[in-house]
């Protein structure tokens, strides 16, 4: 099992951080304030990109889960673990940002906005899967089970969203930062790419960590490998 080295992830993280700083500065300090909502609305420049990326990260986790079940290749499990952690982190950030926006706007920390509520449910769902991983010692079982749980949880997301939306629509229609008109796209896009590069780099680094840990958990391949007719389950190539 080769654990790749290469500078790519660290470059991505650096690039992402730079873009995020630039976009945030532009949006939070330089861009003109929104007419009705004032400065609080500026959080949208961070909130919207975080939302896109959280969804992207968890979608990538789902893809990794499916690929793992089909290929049984460890690299997809390593990526799954990394993607879920990043996804949960971004989702937590999203909920925090939502609360920061809601308090001055509505006077309460949480306003049951369908998107944010769904995100909160996802934090618990995928966080639970990360907890599951911590309690399973056998690497193969751990990988298979978290892939299965990830698929079930991800398939649930649209249903959760619609059910919360209907549930909440019976009350006064709430708004969230992104429902207000967006005057300037550029800070938004810069931040979106900034966070994208940041989490992509982090996922790559984290996958390497997972691959290294796997190495210490699983016996190395046998020195004299017998000639075999059937396929084996060892991953050939990179395992991150």
């Amino acid at each position, binding site marked *: 099992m080769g654990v790749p080295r290469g500078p790519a992830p660290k470059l991505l993280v650096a690039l992402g951080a730079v873009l995020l700083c630039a976009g945030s500065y532009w949006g939070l300090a330089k861009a003109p304030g929104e007419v009705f909502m004032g400065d609080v609305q500026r959080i949208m420049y961070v909130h919207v990109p975080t939302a896109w990326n959280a969804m992207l990260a968890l979608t990538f986790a789902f893809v990794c889960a499916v690929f793992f079940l089909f290929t049984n290749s460890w690299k997809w499990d390593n990526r799954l673990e990394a993607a879920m952690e990043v996804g949960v982190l971004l989702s937590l950030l999203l909920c925090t940002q939502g609360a920061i926006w809601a308090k001055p706007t509505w006077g309460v920390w949480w306003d049951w906005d369908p998107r944010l509520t769904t995100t909160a449910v996802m934090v618990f769902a995928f966080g639970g899967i990360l907890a599951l991983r911590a309690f399973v010692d056998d*690497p193969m079982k751990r990988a298979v089970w978290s892939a299965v749980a990830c698929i079930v949880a991800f398939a649930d997301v649209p249903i959760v969203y619609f059910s919360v939306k209907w549930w909440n629509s019976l009350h006064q229609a709430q708004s969230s930062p992104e429902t207000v008109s967006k005057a300037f796209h550029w800070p938004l896009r810069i931040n979106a790419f900034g966070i994208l590069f940041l989490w992509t780099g982090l996922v790559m680094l984290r996958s390497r960590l997972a691959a290294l840990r796997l190495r210490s958990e*699983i016996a190395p391949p*046998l020195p004299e490998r*017998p000639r075999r007719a*059937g396929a*084996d389950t060892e991953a050939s190539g990179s395992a991150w």
Partner: protein
Amino acid sequence: MIAVAAEGLCRRYGRRWALTDVSFEVPEGALVMVTGRNGSGKSTLLRVLATAIRADLGTARILGHDLRADRDEVREKTALLGHRTHLYEPLTALENLALVARFLGREGRRSALLERLAEVGLSDRADDPVQTFSAGMRQRLALARVLQQEARVMLLDEPYGHLDAPGFLLVDEVLRRLRAGGATVLMATHLLQRGRALCDRSLVLDGGRLVFAGATAEMPAPAGADGAGFAEGA
């Protein structure tokens, strides 16, 4: 015909290779003793052949069917008597056997099942739940359950396990009958004397590796004096 053909079987548990490069062939109708010290990989080998667990490397064919590619056919043709009894504790002896019969698509007529229980000396406990059974009785029922499957290849892990002296004779009798019926039997056991008497072929495992495969008569004597040798049974 070759009943079991293993090539390079390897299986790991965490950092340890429980089986390393195990290759052998067993002809149909043979009664094979699989022996070795505790932790040598006997149970693992039988479980891999039964497809209860997968081999990490290597292949094996049971009556021509590949373990990985034809898993269901292998399962049809094999029966595993493992360390756990595979029994439902709240169900009665009869109900456990009937379950096997029905899942195999066969009729579970009470009379036939009672006969099966009589074979293992449990006919008077047919309608008692397994949770009231002693360890020896559970072992007998597990044996009956395995016989119920009527498999061509029997994989028995310590069949003498918890049994008393009559139980030992029962297992001997079962093995003879299986042999007469043309079944192939791989039996893991510590009871070397008994094994030598019954089995014409042997496989000896040590630390996950196959150190001997051949006629029982030519089997190397076990290490004794160092305290870590084979246990001699009744």
